[in-house]
């Protein structure tokens, strides 16, 4: 973890990566990054070559429609506005924006939102 892996990958690939979240502690580091579609393969390969475990998150949050009661509690806690009320007061979900802060998961009173691991 001594080398600036992220900087090296960006310099090598030229892909404009956006950092959504970063966790670094004494033992490990984990970053959640937003990569433009065209650069995903290149960036993943560049990280893997440097010994980093890469996980592609197509579905950061799984939505269980059967549990959802369309209350919208999730709407006001999402930092990137994944959730929105539609005209009929049902909730629309745009998972592309998700940065995996997981606040919606704890906010949902009905357990309709889970991470892919759970």
């Amino acid at each position, binding site marked *: 973890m001594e080398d600036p892996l992220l900087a090296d990958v960006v310099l090598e690939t030229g892909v404009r990566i956006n950092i959504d979240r970063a966790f670094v502690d004494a033992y490990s580091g984990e970053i959640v990054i937003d990569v433009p579609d065209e650069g995903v393969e290149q960036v993943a390969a560049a990280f893997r070559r440097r010994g980093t475990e890469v996980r592609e998150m197509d579905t950061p949050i799984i939505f269980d429609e059967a549990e959802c009661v369309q209350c919208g509690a999730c709407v006001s806690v999402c930092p990137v506005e994944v959730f929105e009320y539609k005209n009929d007061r049902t909730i629309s979900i745009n998972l592309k924006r998700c940065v995996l802060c997981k606040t919606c998961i*704890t906010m949902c009173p009905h357990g309709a939102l889970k991470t892919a691991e759970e």
Partner: protein
Amino acid sequence: MPKSLEEINERIRDGSVHVVTADEMTALVGELGSENAAREVDVVTTGTFGAMCSSGVWMNFGHSDPPIKMSQVWLNDVEAYAGVAAVDAFIGATQLSETRGLEYGGAHVIEDLVAHKEVYLKAVGYATDCYPRRSVEASISIGDLNEATMLNPRNAYQRYNVATNSTDRVLYTYMGALLPRFGNATYSGSGTLSPIYNDPDYETIGVGTRIFLCGAQGYVVGNGTQHDPANSFGTLMVCGDLKAMSTDYLRAAILHKYGTSLYVGIGVPIPVLNEGIARKTAISDADIKTTVLDYGVGRRSRPQLKTINYEELKSGMIDLNGKEVRTSSMSSFFKAKEIATELAARIQRGAFELALPTARLPQQATLKPMKQLSAVPLVREVMLPSITVREAISVQEAAKIIIGKQINHLPVISASNKLIGIVTAYDISKAVALNKGDSLKGIMTRRVVTATPDEPIDLAARRLERHNISALPVIDQANTVIGIITSEDLSKLLACR
């Protein structure tokens, strides 16, 4: 012109009844005027679907052989109240499981029963000559119960306050997670579809009014607890047969780090007997105001920040002191509308007739606070004088003070006597071990968690718990240290209460 209920029920029976949902009525009255609307419309249906913590079910399990008089009973490790006869018990929505804590509660037992799942029953009792058995266990489902009567002491709040949070930390409440520094605001209530708001003078909603309750036919028992009609905080006590209910309209909920609750679906049909009733059912989201409260203050009376209406809340954004705050609803308007629509459909096909109250609900009520036997002590009554030091002193000097005065916490103050940090005995030990002896500047904690002299000690105790610390310097409004309160002092005190 006024219609009678019997006429309306006759139209329900012959299929000619004209029924609309309360939001449709608002538009109709706007279009035709209340007099014409009263002529046209026979029934207005209202609906609501949100967290109703004051809910529960009375059950009768039938007698065991030999018989037992239950003194304590658990369903899936959630305790129900059995202090009534031998095999009657009441399970409440917010009672938590003894083994699963905040993840499973009475509400979940109730939903599991409605879903026809098996529930594990365990009961103990003291033996008597007529009830010689001491314990019993069984795996039961709803069909095994003699009766399962939902009886909710306080449901269908006319409206509710808006919750927001002025503090620096997330607060976990029955209104969901409240983000710091007014990061969000949550509200609850179906606005234009609100049952009581559509009949604010309790002309048709009263004892015995037939309602839609979680998919079954239920009844209004009377006013709910904490009924406060004069302030537009009316509530209903409702009952219904659990065996006829559906999980489409009854759902257990977990409010993170708060507890469990039951989302109850209620629909109340309002017979349009006269023009006055028609006019009142025209109420819209914009007509219904409520207050934004700061839940950052852990007192019964919370600061009122602003008056706002449900239309503004539903816009998704409100203005609080110049800041744009995002809102979301904890109740589901979509499901409230679904309920009002379903109730209208049942009335239309003759499956639901209306009933006028046998007794009116009170329009006056005084909401009293709890009369407490002992006042909660304030921090000022319990705090001790605090030794303070300057940041320039050495670790060695701080260590001497800690040992000499036999204390564990040393607030650090500036030249102008303002609190700027704190060091603990542990910080000093660590500094000695790492050889950082020069001054306290490098080792003190700068973001000090403090208490104010006039707050109840319960709040101070909660703050110590939340931050996982053992003392709070007490500061006045000028940030001067006027005392200190430690978890040791608090536990001695709380042990005596």
